[in-house]
């Protein structure tokens, strides 16, 4: 289907007038619509449902705004869930700016093919990652693709990746916005049971503006909003302990917005230099079974965690409890 010259007044592929109205004249897809071909559901949707049948919980990490910490949160959430001894998959559908290979410490690795499908890259035994970053020969090379080509890649990621015998959690890291990638991932997952979307924001009104749009997008496409996380919530100076709200919540921050929009508030994560360093090095921020083999030592480590790590752990635990037992 050629989507490069679609008329503006296009009635939509599913409309009764598809291909027949005056607005359709000159559109390269007019024949496809008029014959009813275009309105048939994509068979890939059922193939994706079968592929992901063994995945107990699937959720999207979204934000209307860029740079709020979606990828950071997705990466550390995936590490944390793996640290709690669950089987986790992390799918990065940001085609133009894939961050997960770096954030998971597996930059330069390759995706391999097997008879079962594409094999993800495994930074940990129980944590697999898929990203277009692994398919690029040169990370500085731009991926200059329009919508349809990006959608094709996302379909392949959902249809052709073999995640193993059964995942407890599939985390889908999305780019900012409400466009092709978001429409495609929600439509390709329409037959697979998606638990919902976690929305990440920073406290300032500039981000909340875009996050309200994202919440309305989720409602439009029928994806439940599991909750909103407020990232970069404040910065505590290591020298004098003063807390500064760098990204000032001039309109009350995410918690107030959640009350207004009637969505759950999952918690606040402060700005922590150590969190940023973990993302640069691709290491887990929270302690888990991979960092501490002895249960007693792990419990002690968790008890002695700082304020920032405790905040992150509480958000992760809140999500796990909300999604129900794996």
């Amino acid at each position, binding site marked *: *289907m*050629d*989507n*490069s010259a*679609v008329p*503006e007044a*296009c*009635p*939509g*592929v*599913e409309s009764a007038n598809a291909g027949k109205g005056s607005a359709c004249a*000159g559109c*390269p897809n007019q024949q496809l*619509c008029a014959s009813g071909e*275009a*309105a048939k559901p994509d068979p*890939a949707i059922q193939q994706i449902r079968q592929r992901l049948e063994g995945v107990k919980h699937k959720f999207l990490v979204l934000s209307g705004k*860029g*740079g*709020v910490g979606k*990828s950071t949160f997705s990466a550390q959430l995936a590490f944390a869930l793996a640290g709690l001894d669950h089987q986790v998959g992390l799918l990065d559908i940001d085609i*133009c*700016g894939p*961050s997960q290979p*770096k954030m998971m410490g597996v930059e330069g690795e390759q995706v391999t093919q097997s008879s079962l499908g594409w094999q993800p890259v495994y930074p940990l035994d129980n944590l697999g990652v898929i990203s277009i970053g692994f398919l690029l020969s040169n990370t*500085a*090379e*731009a*991926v*200059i693709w*329009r*919508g*349809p*080509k*990006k*959608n*094709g890649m996302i*379909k*392949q990621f959902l*249809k052709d990746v073999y995640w193993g015998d059964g995942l407890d959690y599939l985390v889908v890291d999305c*780019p*900012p*916005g*409400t*466009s*092709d990638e*978001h429409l495609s991932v929600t439509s390709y997952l329409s037959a697979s049971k998606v638990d919902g979307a976690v929305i990440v924001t920073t406290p300032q009104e*500039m981000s909340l503006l*875009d996050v309200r*749009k994202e919440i*309305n997008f989720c409602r439009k496409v029928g994806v439940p909003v599991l909750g909103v996380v407020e990232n970069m919530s404040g*910065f505590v100076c*290591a020298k*004098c302990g*003063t807390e*500064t709200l*760098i990204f000032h919540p001039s309109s009350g921050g995410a918690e107030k917005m959640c009350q207004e929009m009637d969505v759950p508030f999952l918690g606040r994560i402060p700005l922590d*230099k150590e969190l*940023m360093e973990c993302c*640069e090095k691709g290491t887990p921020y929270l302690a888990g079974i991979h960092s501490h083999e002895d249960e007693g030592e792990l419990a002690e480590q968790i008890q002695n965690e700082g304020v920032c790590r405790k905040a992150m752990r509480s958000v992760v635990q809140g999500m796990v409890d909300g999604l129900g037992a794996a």
Partner: protein
Amino acid sequence: RSKTPSLFSLPSPTPERLQQPPRKPDPRPYLCPAAAMPGGVDKIKNIVLVLSGKGGVGKTTVAVQIAQSMAAQGKKVGILDVDLCGPSVAKVLGLEGKEVMQSSEGWVPVYTDAQKSMCCMSIAFLLKNNDEAVVWRGPKKTAMIKQFVGDVVWGELDMLIIDTPPGTSDEQMATIEELKGAKLRGAVVVTTPQQVAVVDVQKEISFARKMGVRVLGVVENMSGFVCPCCQEVTDVFS
């Protein structure tokens, strides 16, 4: 309101089918290239894009600061926001709630003051409700950007700054293609210090070069935080 077509019958991508089809000439006369329109950008002396591969680095902040600094020096400045999903410029300039007027020559941009020192165009002015999501696929976004460049009566500006969303996709390609024939001087690329941002910025620079746009330079934003109490500088993002 017309719906964008869905892609349910997109064939499975094979290497041959991943080739982009050649662009056909646009048969619709009202969407001609920018330079031929009575509205449009042909009388603008300088056009600069503000790009970044990464989101949230401060593109809008930097774009608005450049525009405001130039306006304060007495230049006639325009700022075009082609971020259709998350338009921030209207809010930063305090122009929320303003409407776009139509004239016989095209759309009239929103002016920041009575002296007309700075004008702005954004999809935010066309939305009935600020919380309304703009859920459009590539082709519809491309058509909107064509109109923003070609149908707005920008007039004889000294400078037009174009704020873009993060990425190297439809919006960026549409903007650059529509500016063929106009005085596009180059692009300013904004980043923050962390590695993840720098990798995306390398991609953006590679994109600019491939599209034939000169990179005027790179700005490193959020370069460090000075504690207001003890003046200690912490490199939060590096």
